[in-house]
């Protein structure tokens, strides 16, 4: 059961149709406030007790000329009475605030879906800008859709005229009018949005009033207007959700907080050194506002300087963290190699984007796995982790800090643009439930008679000791030239280099003992086919496997959070399946690692178009492999 704290749900006016889940996409010009609209709707939906997932889709331009297709900004939400795993394959409802938004998004709407259009923007000029030869509202372009046309611009202007706002300001409330209508359609509570508006425009009360009026007007329009067809509003029952206190969280937020939480658990200061790059900049922005958590942030002159200053910070006895995206990570490679050789803790976060090179900065991809696992000169093993969802970023942030500090190693943590920007409901954990893992720095008394040996090793972890500058008696010198086992002095000795290479490899391999055994998310521990995923494909795979299992297929879902080292039982686990399928938003990378490690005939499903997988794409791939099989149970 869901109780929404301090919020009263309005009584439903008209008889509503019940649906299990819905996908709505808001689309408009960059200036139309679609992202705000989406996040308000997300909150209202969470408060209504649905499970949900979202996908914001920004334009690449900062501010494209108004009305152009490349200036369209969209926000998609999938919500329902059941567990929601992805933002949805295809919208049931598209809200198009202008012709360009219709042009760009119509192709994805479900056949028979609803299209809501602001006719006020369908001027000749705008149609032309959007590249329409004729008015799609008048030709047959929208056949097969349920189309709701209304002049939202005009209706908004009328609703707000009493508040003395300029025309421009009035039109900026259009998104609230639309939100009001959608609130009515899905029976959401307006109160939290009203509160949010009051708060946001505290210093401009007339703007707040106008927006609130627009919100109300849109809602009333839904209640009273004659909507075409049998459209009478919907009910989406509350989902069966683990009880507790929830919030919406983006991957960027959860990751930033996870890193801060991890360093608190490690009893360390966090020094984040970063250089802005889409879509990783948010991590810098969020952590820059967390100084009271003993977080120091530094916008370096470039990615190399960011990596190097993070490593310098680790040398000095704090946790150095550096965040970037693919091209920036490429620049950090040489420095990361030093951290591997010097054996210093370091967390490197890669919020992946579509590539190669500059690629499509605002589109998502998970094509930096090769770079993470193999992308350095020489034998330079390190730990690679991958978060699987916005909320999971919190725990993976902590895990990255734990492994980096316990094993004195760089850890590469992979997120992606989709996960970073999308938000999902998060059952907020109690920070006190997390086991602290305070770092024990070397102390003068540890060394007894002899001198400090910076490359002595912990027998169990093979980690070297960490001595903090400022500690008397532990002065030592390290660097990138091969270090003598024990003393750390420069050594050109052949056998020492072999030994150190082996030790570095063994240390990282040994971490497999310190991570969870690989489990199966859904399905049996062996069988006809395992779908193996990593990163943000978790959502679509999980739903696809669920659907397939419902359909009687013998499929299991295995999801990796530890990419390197791999869980120690993974090879055995995979060998229990006839087929292994690896969907990736790249041209086949994890699949290479699995084939090389375990000689399993794993096969890739690749998608490299900057968009997350659709559930059906994974379903189809599995079906095509299993339906062809003779005789056996599907």
């Amino acid at each position, binding site marked *: *059961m869901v*109780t929404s*704290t301090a919020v009263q749900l309005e009584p439903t006016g008209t008889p509503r149709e019940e649906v299990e889940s819905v996908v709505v996409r808001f689309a408009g010009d960059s200036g139309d406030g679609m992202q705000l609209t989406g996040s308000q709707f997300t909150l209202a939906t969470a*408060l209504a*007790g649905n499970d949900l997932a979202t996908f914001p889709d920004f334009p690449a331009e900062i501010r494209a000329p108004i009305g152009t297709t490349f200036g369209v900004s969209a926000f998609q939400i999938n919500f329902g009475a059941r567990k929601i795993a992805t933002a949805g394959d295809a919208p049931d409802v598209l809200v198009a605030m202008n012709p360009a938004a219709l042009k760009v998004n119509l192709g994805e709407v479900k056949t028979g879906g609803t299209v809501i259009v602001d006719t006020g923007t369908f001027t000749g000029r705008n149609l032309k800008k959007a590249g329409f030869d004729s008015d799609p509202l008048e030709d047959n372009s929208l056949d097969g859709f349920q189309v709701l046309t209304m002049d939202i611009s005009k209706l908004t202007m009328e609703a707000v005229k009493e508040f003395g706002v300029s025309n421009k300001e009035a039109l900026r409330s259009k998104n609230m009018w639309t939100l009001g209508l959608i609130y009515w359609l899905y029976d959401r509570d307006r109160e939290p949005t009203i509160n*949010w508006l009051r708060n946001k425009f505290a210093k401009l009360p007339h703007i707040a009033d106008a927006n609130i009026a627009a919100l109300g007007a849109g809602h009333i329009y839904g209640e009273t207007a004659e909507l075409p067809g049998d459209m009478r509003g919907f009910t989406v029952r509350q989902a069966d959700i*683990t*009880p*507790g*206190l*929830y*919030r*919406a969280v983006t991957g960027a937020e959860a990751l930033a*907080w996870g890193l*801060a*939480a991890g360093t608190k658990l490690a009893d360390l*200061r966090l*020094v984040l050194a970063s250089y802005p790059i889409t879509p990783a900049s948010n991590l810098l922005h969020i952590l820059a506002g*967390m*100084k*009271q*958590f*003993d977080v*120091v942030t*530094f916008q*370096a*002159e*470039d990615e*190399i*300087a960011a990596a*190097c*200053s993070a*490593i*310098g*910070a680790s*040398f*000095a*006895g704090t946790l*150095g963290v550096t965040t970037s995206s693919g091209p920036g990570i490429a620049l950090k490679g*040489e420095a990361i190699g030093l951290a591997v050789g010097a054996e210093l803790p370091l967390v490197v976060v890669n919020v992946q984007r579509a590539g190669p090179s500059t690629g499509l900065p605002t589109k998502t991809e998970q094509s930096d796995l090769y770079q993470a696992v193999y992308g350095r000169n020489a034998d330079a093993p390190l730990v690679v982790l991958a978060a699987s969802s916005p909320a999971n970023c919190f725990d993976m942030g902590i895990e990255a800090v734990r492994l980096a500090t316990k094993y004195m190693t760089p850890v590469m943590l992979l997120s992606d643009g989709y996960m970073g920007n999308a938000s999902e409901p998060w*059952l*907020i954990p*109690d*920070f*006190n439930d997390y086991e602290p893992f305070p770092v024990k720095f070397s102390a003068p008394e540890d060394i007894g008679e002899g001198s400090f040996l910076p490359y002595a090793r912990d027998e169990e972890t093979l980690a070297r000791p960490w001595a*903090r*500058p*400022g*500690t*008397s008696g*532990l*002065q*030592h*010198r*390290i*660097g*990138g*030239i091969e270090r003598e086992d024990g003393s750390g*002095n*420069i050594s050109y000795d052949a056998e020492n280099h072999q030994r150190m290479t082996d030790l570095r490899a063994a240390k990282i391999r040994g971490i497999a003992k310190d991570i969870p055994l690989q489990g199966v998310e859904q399905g049996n521990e062996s069988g006809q086919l395992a779908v193996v995923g990593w990163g943000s494909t978790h959502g679509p795979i999980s739903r696809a496997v669920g659907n397939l299992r419902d359909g009687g297929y013998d499929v299991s879902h295995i999801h990796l959070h530890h990419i390197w080292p791999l869980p120690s039982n993974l090879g055995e686990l995979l060998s229990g399946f006839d087929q292994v399928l690896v969907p990736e938003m790249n041209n086949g990378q994890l699949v290479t690692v699995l084939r090389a490690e375990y000689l399993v005939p794993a096969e890739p499903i690749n998608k490299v178009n900057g968009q997350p997988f659709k559930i059906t794409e994974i379903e189809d791939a599995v079906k095509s492999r299993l339906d062809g099989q003779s005789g056996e149970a599907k």
Partner: protein
Amino acid sequence: MNAPAKPSALKAKDFASDQEVRWCPGCGDYAILKGVQKALADIGTPPENVVFISGIGCSSRFPYYMSTYGFHTIHGRAPAFATGVKLANPDMDVWLVTGDGDGLSIGGNHMLHALRRNVNMQIMLFNNEIYGLTKGQYSPTSKQGTRSPSTPLGSLDRPLSPVLFALGANASFVARAVDTQQKHMPGVLQRAHAHEGASFVEIYTNCIVYNDGAFGSFSEKTNAADGELVLEHGEPMIFGQDRDKGIRMKPGAIELEVVQLGVDGITEDDLLRHDETNRVLAGLLGAMRNPDFPVAVGVLYCEDAEAYDTAVYRQVDEARAAGGEADMNALLRGGATWTVGE
């Protein structure tokens, strides 16, 4: 900024590590090592609070020879590592060692930004006008026409002047010293240490193998008096074996000239007095080159400014004071939340 050295019980040898020094016999870097160890003893920071950071190059081997904390990093990036150390722990006394290739070729950008940010550390750029470690290629400070393995017909690039570069980078402290001048160098390093912020010290050093004698016109004992102008804040600019030459502004022009004291009625009063706080004057002095002018050594420029790391922790402290105790649970629960009941 002119803080006198505290009396110290430390000796130069307390700053020497147990590692064998491995420069070529006769390399100027030996003398700098001696000068730095002397300066550190005079300054008196305990070795455990001192961190030496270097890049890659012959000069960058330096940290191994010091009994302090040390990090021999990668080529050109020492300023970034050092910045990280100061961000982590502003209490450390950070010294950076780099070469003309390390600090101005591959590492020019980090140098630029460490200087303009004014991160509190001492940056010693060992300028031998050549790549020593990689066997003698020309560097960004090599004279035009330098024949080297990569420029068999002579180099074509216009050289950089490290001090003019630093001034253009908005550095707050710029100085010069010379390997052979053991009396002068520790004082300059002490001044650099006393300065809050990034102190840039160009130290000329002789690469006996690949660029021997590059600075002989002023670094050799016999040439120093005539080839060099030793700067002292507030003092008139006099030099020469017989202290009979001086520097003044050329009347009616924005440039310097060398004058002879006593000739044409010129007296000390006509000479420029060194003003460390004038960046333009520092630029004029930094540009002086043999044989037309003496080479200026000592502190060319010194300006009071808050160090970057100091400001960083000022902001941290203010945020903590304003934000109250940092509470992770409160953070996670900030903003809009909702409860799902049993």
